């Protein structure tokens, strides 16, 4: 689904660039095949929404209803677009109100 309000974001950034509490949309996974497959199966796919719960190595993100800890290398291969901080992130988890 194309993002209409794309003006906020310009270039995809690494997941590690997010601050605590920020929401983002996954744009691309640049990992090797095995790691990319593993991330994808856990829900890190293009268009997936993530929330940064705790920054650092490893960081803690929420994807859907799951809480996942990710090491530094994996944070660097997940490229995201920061969501509009005013608009509430629309989750793919069926939590849409």
């Amino acid at each position, binding site marked *: 689904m194309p993002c209409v309000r794309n003006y906020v974001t310009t270039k995809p950034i690494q997941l590690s660039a997010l601050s605590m509490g920020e929401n983002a949309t996954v744009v691309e996974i640049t990992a090797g*095949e*095995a790691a990319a497959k*593993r991330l*994808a199966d*856990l*829900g890190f*796919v293009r268009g997936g929404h993530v929330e940064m719960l*705790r920054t650092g190595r490893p960081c803690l993100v929420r994807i859907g209803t799951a809480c996942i800890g990710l*090491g530094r290398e994996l944070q660097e291969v997940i490229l995201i677009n920061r969501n509009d901080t005013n608009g509430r992130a629309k989750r793919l988890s069926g939590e849409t109100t």
Partner: protein
Amino acid sequence: MARSLPVHTPATTRVVALVGNPNTGKSTIFAALTGMRQRIGNYPGITVEKRTGTVSDPERNLQLEILDLPGTYSLSVHADDEAVVLDALLGTHGMGPRPDVIVAVVDASNLRRNLFFTTQVLELGQPVVVALNMIDIAERAGMNIDVSALAKELGVPVVPIVASKGNGIDGLRDAIAQSTTSQPSSRCQSFPDCVCAELDGLCASLAASGDGESAVSSRAEAIQTLLSPGGYHESRLVERCGLGLAEELAERRDRISAAGESIVEVEAQVRYAWIDRVLPGVVSHVKRSHKSGSEIADRFLTHRVIGLIVFIVLMGGCFQSIYAWTTPLMNGIDATFGVLSDVISGIMPTGALRSLVVNGILAGIGSVLVFLPQILVLFFFLAILEDCGYMARAAFLLDRWMALLGLNGKSFFPLLSSFACAVPGILATRSIESRRDRMVTIMIAPLMSCSARLPVYALLIAAFVPPTQLLGGVISLQALTLLAMYSVGAIVAIPIALLLKKTILKGKPQSFLLELPTYKWPSPRTVFVRVYEQGREFCVTAGTIIFAVTVVIWALGYYPRPASIAADHQTQRDAITAQFHASTTASDMPTEQHDELHAAYEEQISHIDQSEAGAYLRQSILGRTGKFFEPIVRPLGWDWRVGTGVIAAFAAREVLVATLGTIYNLGDDQDETSAGLREQMKAATWEDGTPVFNLAVALSIMVFFALCCQCAATLAVIQRETQSWQWPVLAFTYMTGLAYVAALATYQITIRLT
């Protein structure tokens, strides 16, 4: 009385496989269904072994054989424990027949991620029942799940359950029994056309190679083979069908990429898209509370500083309680065995048999069983921490510290399990994806202080470390020493792991990836089962291996019994008796003087008895062997008795305590009441009369035990897991060498400081 029974045809056996994501309560469901005792882990890799249990359903004349499989997020295999799931579901690689029914366990509070795996399972072509577990947690989080709508979308029965409370288990059992008679249902996801074409093509060529798989499961297998490059399916199929398949796969993948689809992402996109379309009609959100309890707890417990402090305080508390809670119980067990051996000494005639029972069996087993309370308390804490979900947080917190070892946080689970026992710890390494990381973890796991070392520490600390209170009574010096002994192995593991990573197991650590499950109250049943199983195992070991070794050690220490020793001592005894009688014949001797003489006489006799027992022991095979090895262990501050005990303990560590119990009892005056091993060790002296044991010797023995690989079971499991002799030999050599050097240093330094 004779009531004719209705004639039954033999019950039909159905194989039921339990699968699901990690932390969905699969093992709890398994235990609730089968009533079988079963260990439950809160992290991937703990239930790596095939576990089966049977339920009979006489009404339907069915016998259900239930198979508990490791938790996995996907059918595409990344780690060894996931390969077990796949083999079991496909009935390949000697995992037995394909299951007749698959029960997909789903965490209701985390439906989206769980359904990904469920959709994969649905495509296997076997009848599926979905067990919707933890609906209570989902409801508390404000989710309302329409179970019938979910069943309709999935096309299979969905049974809501709360496994921890046993709710819905009957319904699940019925659903399993019914679905075995219904037709297999399958709902396949529609992939983009370009992918579909390649999948159909691959299916066709797999069918042409004719390996007898059913068409539907071939499709499921084709998906995992085509869309998971370099994965387990691919290598397995290439092995089976030859290199032509590898080329075919490469071509098909190129065509998919050319059509603009991502090989590794397309499956997740298709499945999650379907789930996201279905979920709004299934889940309605009543009102999501702003922050759940889990999130609030994680604010502190995963905090880099606060979380680490909490972790250290928790661990310190555990060790302190192991000491504080168990002392009365241990004293009780000690006293019971003391009374028991007194009673038996009283009723049995003197001789080899009484010596075997009292000095061999009772002394040996008693000295080990005394530590049962401490082991139970240790496992009680581990089970609670595991069951409530804290272990994953600990792994998260410690990832950056594990990075110091060149490993990631995932190695923390196996290493922590190794503090209980290295054998399950090494089995748990199967969830580590990187082979190098796994090997390093296996090599350092035996350094973690396992529960078998606890008896050794406990004995020596209680006897030789003063119970001084530190920090105003918060922690005692004894508890601190125990903590230090537990840390020694872990600290030494750091340079060892780094060395392995720099030399024979070079490679970057695998990046950390781990789900943190929602916190829940530990289920008393799970905790009880875990503690009970470990306690039982400890008693069985005490009753078998330790029993056998004790009897052998007793025999080696009892025989041979040269007649010359008995004759020598008898001559001495006779001389003293004669002297005593001669000096007391004077009729006018006052009673006090007579009593005094009699006491002196008794003392002399008892000295002779002790020297006789000591002479026998030194003459025995055990004594001579120990003496032979004494020059080697002397620099560590040990006498030959300790040396003998340590050698005997190479089969299993607990043997040391039992062996010392036997040796000290044999060398003791046998008519004396058993004063307990601790007192006997305090009283032990070198030939010149100086005590054998002091703080330096105790520390040196403990350090040796902390670092030495004295466990046949561990070496055997390393051999089995690595499929080579090189690794167990390496583990044994480096640990024994390290233990000797460290014990030497400990003794030589402590003896100069004290």
